[in-house]
């Protein structure tokens, strides 16, 4: 269990001059001891680079990595005592499950009795006690990932467990079970867990704090709730939520807000000029057209997604999406509706940054 402090930048070029030369733009971040964190972002955003720097598989071109205050920038993964679970299951084919789990302890010359006890404990936590003597090579993908995870947990003094998109090869209904298992383990062992993914559902359900990244830059770090309700950047608004945040072009001037043909008094203090109004599909309410303060629009498509209706709307030349509960009135395709876009959940952006 350790607290990790990062104060670094990373570039694969010897003399980085501009932003695009950096794989990781200069950042300063702290991962508290025992916290569950997720690094979320699209491919190429630098999240795996950051993970590899933390695990010691990569040395940052500038800056430091500290574990509990100690400079570990150049320390090996072993010295840092971290464990890492990769995208595809990495197991030793020739060994049984028990031997796989015992491997890290054997390398540290831990006494046989302690190894057996520890392996038994971890196997039970992962619900694999009855498979200990099976050959690891013959198991399914999710069981192999559990073994990979187990190898990391079996060391009692592991400082942090790092995950690099571990559920990529797992079937959807097994993903549920594994995610639940990970959260249980976090709760029981209180380890520092850092999870890299491009899947926002995984990130939000797993982590206490999510770090959203794009193109080597950390855009926002916060709780899933904060990222959902008040994204600091339109990228976060778009990336989090399925579908992402709706963004409307708007103009603010003289205390009024103009959205397309609609003009309303500005709901809060807004900077003058061109703005973008952000409202999540979950909070976009439909009413009758012509209601005060409602934007006129028409329904283009209604999809039944089982647990909700996804409505695609044409509004002032732009496309918006709304999520309706299955108990709500199902709108007809082509119907004219009014959209309530102004509310407590609405966010305003100028130059992609949150301003109100």
């Amino acid at each position, binding site marked *: 269990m350790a607290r990790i402090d990062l104060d670094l930048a990373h570039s694969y070029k010897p003399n980085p001059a501009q932003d695009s030369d950096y794989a990781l733009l200069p950042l300063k971040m702290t991962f508290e001891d025992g916290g569950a964190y997720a690094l979320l972002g*699209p*491919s*190429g955003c630098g999240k795996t680079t950051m993970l590899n720097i933390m695990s010691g598989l990569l040395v940052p071109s500038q800056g430091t990595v500290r574990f509990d205050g100690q400079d570990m920038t150049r320390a090996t993964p072993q010295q840092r005592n971290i464990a890492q679970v990769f995208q595809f299951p990495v197991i030793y084919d020739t060994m049984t499950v028990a031997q796989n789990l015992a491997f890290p302890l054997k390398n540290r010359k831990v006494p046989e009795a302690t190894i057996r006890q520890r392996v038994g404990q971890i196997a039970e936590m992962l619900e694999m006690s009855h498979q200990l003597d099976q050959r690891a090579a013959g198991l399914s993908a999710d069981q192999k990932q559990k073994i990979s995870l187990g190898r990391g947990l079996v060391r009692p003094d592991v400082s942090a467990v790092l995950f690099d998109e571990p559920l990529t090869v797992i*079937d*959807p*209904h097994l993903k*549920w079970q594994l*995610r*639940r298992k990970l*959260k*249980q383990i976090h*709760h029981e062992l209180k380890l520092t867990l850092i999870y890299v993914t*491009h*899947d*926002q*559902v995984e990130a*939000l*359900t*797993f982590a206490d704090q999510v770090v959203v990244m794009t193109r080597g830059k950390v855009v926002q770090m916060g709780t*899933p*709730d904060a*990222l*959902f309700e008040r994204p600091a950047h339109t990228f976060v608004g*778009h*990336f*989090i*939520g*399925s*579908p*992402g945040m709706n963004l409307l072009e708007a103009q603010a001037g003289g205390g009024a807000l103009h959205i397309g043909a609609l003009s309303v008094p500005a709901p809060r203090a807004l900077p003058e000029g061109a703005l973008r109004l952000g409202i*999540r599909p*979950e909070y976009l309410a439909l009413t009758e057209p012509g209601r005060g303060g409602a934007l006129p629009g028409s329904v283009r498509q209604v*999809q*039944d*997604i*089982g*647990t909700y209706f*996804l409505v695609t709307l044409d509004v002032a030349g732009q496309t918006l999406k709304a*999520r309706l*509960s*299955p*108990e709500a009135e*199902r709108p007809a395709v082509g119907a004219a509706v009014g959209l309530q876009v102004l509310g407590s959940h609405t966010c305003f952006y100028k130059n992609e940054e949150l301003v109100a």
Partner: protein
Amino acid sequence: MQLTLSGISQRVGAQTWLYDMSLAPTPGAVTVLLGATQAGKTTLMRLMAGLDVPSSGSVLVDGHDVTGTPVRERNVAMVYQQFINYPSMTVYDNIASPLKLGGRPKAEIDRRVRELAAKLHIEVFLDRLPAELSGGQQQRVALARALAKNAPLMLLDEPLVNLDYKLREELREELCALFAAGDATVIYATTEPSEALLLGGWTAVMDAGELLQYGPTAEVFHRPVSLRVAKAFSDPPMNLLAAEVAEGGARLNHGELIAVDLPREATRALTLGIRASALRVQPRPGDVALPGRVELAEISGSDTFVHVHTAVGELVAQLTGVHEFDLGAALTLHVSPTQVYAFDATGALLVAPQRRT
């Protein structure tokens, strides 16, 4: 074109990969093949394309038997999950290749290639090689090539699975629009129930080599004919509770009575299914209460998934909005009996919730 698979099965050596099944995908519509990995989706698609010959049964196109016809002579386009493109040809040549093989005049090829590239937003990459593009862009090239062929049957084998989450969302929307605009019969294989629901159209649910149900997607989702279909087609997994027939409905193991209208011939032992979204925290009149302890709460932006340990089993509830729960706290979940599925001892559906249509 009407594709009909009649009584086909596929055996390789001693293993049966596909059990006897018949399927006639609705022409001009999207049919989703939904199932876990190894369910037989790829095997079935290969039979449809003509890459393999079924061990028994026949494949018919518009009434003609094409079972032995090799794929080269059938008019089929296929897109794979591994972004397959000709690596030494530029994007332009890749998209043009089926048109060139079809012997089309040069002017027409050029027009069509640019049209498709614009549709898939890759017109700026026409001179590049596939290796220089990102995953999403490579898959767009593969899609454009498949569309260029203009085949009446288009097969897509989990085409978005190797892409980022957000990219998948974007491309899926574009695919829906492309499919709707064309009139080809599209067969789309996926492991994710949510993808099937987002694509709409029709769904064929497969499990372990068997075809379990085929029908309009929403219909299959809301009325699964068996327990296996319900299990395969739900995300998060459906809560399943053992129960017995009792006076007035079904009785759970711990004694709660759920008032469901069971048919007279129902077997004694039942399985009740409750979707995670049907469970509520706030009770409404008529709800059955299921008290328990919170084991885990997962917040995913707009929803909270709470795992509750109750006397009748482990339940997962999907609640809208963000709710904070203390681990170990007591929590009672409520469900309306009208929202409960009932399956008999063999797994066949007895009762499904009524939908407002």
